[in-house]
């Protein structure tokens, strides 16, 4: 007998997603966004260059000194000539700069991606549905035929998903979990769009296949 049914119970799935979202935030100080992580994983040189460029900026005093030098270089005497009032609630000496959060290293992104695949494997094993096959199921076969054509369709679908997530600035995790949980208007709108489209398309396909 399998430990879990074919699909996880919705409540358990929700708890697992909440734990991953919260765990990512508590562990890295950054919000979960899988498509962004994947994009950074696929650009290792850029990711490492960014991490290098931010080295030392977690030291707030060093950051304050660097910002002061950059301000003088940009505005010269202008920043002293125009005495700006301190921000509300801040004394003339200022407050400590907010601590910056270091970027997760490229290796951490690779571990996350590997764990995503392992999680799927574990879930399928626990539900007793683990099997390896080279087709995409009878529905996909009927809609898009079998063999190489179905693989090309799958590849095109992947490209469209990648393009869409980059264009929308997030995916089901970035907008759906991290954004909606913070009631971000853009994320709420994006989630309504992609989930709404998915539901409509599923209903349409179910009708076509009936």
């Amino acid at each position, binding site marked *: 007998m399998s430990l879990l049914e074919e699909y996880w119970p919705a409540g358990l799935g929700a708890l697992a997603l909440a734990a991953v979202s919260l765990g990512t935030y508590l562990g890295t100080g950054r919000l979960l966004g899988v498509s962004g992580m994947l994009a950074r994983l696929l650009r290792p040189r850029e990711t490492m260059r960014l991490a290098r460029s931010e080295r030392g900026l977690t030291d707030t005093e060093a950051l304050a000194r660097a910002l002061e030098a950059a301000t003088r270089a*940009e505005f010269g005497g202008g920043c002293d000539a125009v005495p*700006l009032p301190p921000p509300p609630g801040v004394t003339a000496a200022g407050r400590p700069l907010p601590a910056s959060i270091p970027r997760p290293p490229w290796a951490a992104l690779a571990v996350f991606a590997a764990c995503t695949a392992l999680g799927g494997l574990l879930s399928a094993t626990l539900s007793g549905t683990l099997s390896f096959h080279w087709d995409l199921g009878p529905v996909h076969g009927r809609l898009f035929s079998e063999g190489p054509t179905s693989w090309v369709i799958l590849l095109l679908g992947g490209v469209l998903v990648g393009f869409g997530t980059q264009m929308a*600035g997030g995916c089901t995790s970035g907008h759906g979990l991290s954004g909606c949980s913070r009631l971000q208007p853009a994320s709420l709108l994006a989630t309504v769009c992609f989930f709404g489209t998915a539901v409509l398309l599923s209903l349409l396909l179910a009708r076509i296949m009936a």
Partner: protein
Amino acid sequence: MASKQCPHAADCPLFAAFQVRAFLRIWQMNYCDATFERCVRYQRIVEGKEVPLSLMPNGKQLPDLGAPKKE
């Protein structure tokens, strides 16, 4: 006319940094609270690109503070 603020101010770590020292508010006055469209950070966000913390609104980079000091 009501002044318009950069729509990314809430998530921008530099905006938060400019907020806590009077001396640094000149950046806010010149970019975030005025013509944020010319901020290079803003432009990169709009293009969907990564924005390093070390990138200033004028496009210049803060020095690499973690690099070993030259004698």
